[in-house]
């Protein structure tokens, strides 16, 4: 039974976790300040390396304490190597290297997206081949996993990530942060009655949300120009249905051509109720032989537990980094 210490600092969060036997969370600590975000009506990112440095030792200490373990009990140290913001990533990478060196533990590099997908392992066994839809504030990717620890990116966003489009449209509609949550709420009172643009990128499995975001803005400006009124709940609903349908169309296309055992959602936008409903009501019905996994919210957001699960699998597969390893802000998933 492996015990993996995982460190994640790819952007806003400084986090550490200990995972036992690839799927049991012994401790999961995040130094987050979401209340501060709300206070300012926008995201106040803790992205400065200085803040990660202030947090990291405390977070790791707290994590080991909660797991009731010492560094000597740990089998390997996993860390997010990328992608992310270079200064933030460096702090986690450096902490992982220091611990691994001081306690003579193997170092296991993990891709942030692999972490999001493997977060599902916390609630279910994964069966391959599988198709994963990773949707968050920073990512929109469709990934095919033929086997364990094999990744093929089928499609990715050509401009904005879907979560970013939700947050920006939320801001335009005057909704609080995070916009995605409030658009989801507001949509429940509205109807999908406005036709909004659905940009089509060159490759059919790629995504594009920038044009849709601009389409919402153009719509509001046009209404203002023509002195017409509109219901914000209808616009929110129309936007949400359009954005989510872009995801579902790509997933549908991929499922039609690939024989997979599972379809898994991952990332913060997997919490969106419209996406969850359509996956359950449409995709699951259309592909009854594919098990659709919809993770609980606790598995969706950025945290170190997901890096720990992915790191445990990578550790078993012999993935290692030397002490010369560095953060890779533009890291590719396939390799």
């Amino acid at each position: 039974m492996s015990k993996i210490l995982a460190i994640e600092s790819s952007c806003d969060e400084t986090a550490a976790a200990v995972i036992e036997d690839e799927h049991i969370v012994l401790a999961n600590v995040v130094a987050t300040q979401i209340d501060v975000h709300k206070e300012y009506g926008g995201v106040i990112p803790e992205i400065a390396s200085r803040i990660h440095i202030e947090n990291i030792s405390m977070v790791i200490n707290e994590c080991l304490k909660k797991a009731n373990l010492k560094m000597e009990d740990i089998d390997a140290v996993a860390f997010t190597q990328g992608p992310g913001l270079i200064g933030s990533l460096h702090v986690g990478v450096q902490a992982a290297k220091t611990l691994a060196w001081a306690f003579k533990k193997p170092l296991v590099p993990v891709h942030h997206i692999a972490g999001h997908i493997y977060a599902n392992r916390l609630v279910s066994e994964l069966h391959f081949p599988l198709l994963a839809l990773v949707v968050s504030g920073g990512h929109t990717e469709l990934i095919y996993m033929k086997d364990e620890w094999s990744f093929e990116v089928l499609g990715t966003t050509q401009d904005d990530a879907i979560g970013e489009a939700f947050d920006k449209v939320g801001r335009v509609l005057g909704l609080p942060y995070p916009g995605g949550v409030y658009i989801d709420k507001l949509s429940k009172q509205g109807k999908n009655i406005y036709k909004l643009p659905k940009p089509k990128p060159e490759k059919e499995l790629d995504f594009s949300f920038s044009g849709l975001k601009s389409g919402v803005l153009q719509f509001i400006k046009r209404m203002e120009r023509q002195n017409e009124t509109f219901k914000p709940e209808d616009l929110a609903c129309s936007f949400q249905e359009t954005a989510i349908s872009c995801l579902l169309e790509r997933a549908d296309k991929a499922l039609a051509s690939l024989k997979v055992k599972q379809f898994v959602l991952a990332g913060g936008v997997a919490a969106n109720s419209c996406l969850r409903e359509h996956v359950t009501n449409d995709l699951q019905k259309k592909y009854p032989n594919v098990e659709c996994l919809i993770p609980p919210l606790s598995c969706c957001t950025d945290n170190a537990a997901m890096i720990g699960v992915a790191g445990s699998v990578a550790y078993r597969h012999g993935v290692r980094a030397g002490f010369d390893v560095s953060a890779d802000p533009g890291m590719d998933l396939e390799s």
Partner: protein
Amino acid sequence: MKKVIHSKKDTELLGRKLGELSFKGMCITLNGDLGAGKTTLTKSIGKGMGIDKTISSPTFTILKIYKGNIPLYHIDAYRMEGIDQDLGFEEILQGEGVCVIEWGEFIKDILPEERLDISIYIQKDEERIFDINAYGERYESLLEKLL
């Protein structure tokens, strides 16, 4: 100076030209309306610089780095509004590559004095007004070549 741009294609042509004219240490800020085409413009600047990789929005990670003949540092300060954190961007701003900063107005205290400021405003449909201002000789001559 102000320039009216009639289509997304024109925005892309302008960006590509800007990329072709890029030099080490160049700094461009992009401001204006949300959804006006800041990332679209940056994508074509990258193409002009010979970068093949997809350039996508850096809003979430704040900075994305692309390797070309010289590196492109694509910064988005959208999430930096009203906060003061030392991100070590000074190093990048005085570095060996090209810096394109979306929502540069949110970090104006750390911007170099010499730079190109572009503000993009949405008009009807794909029409945009580009308000372009050059600061410093290098950027003034760049602007002349650009238009």
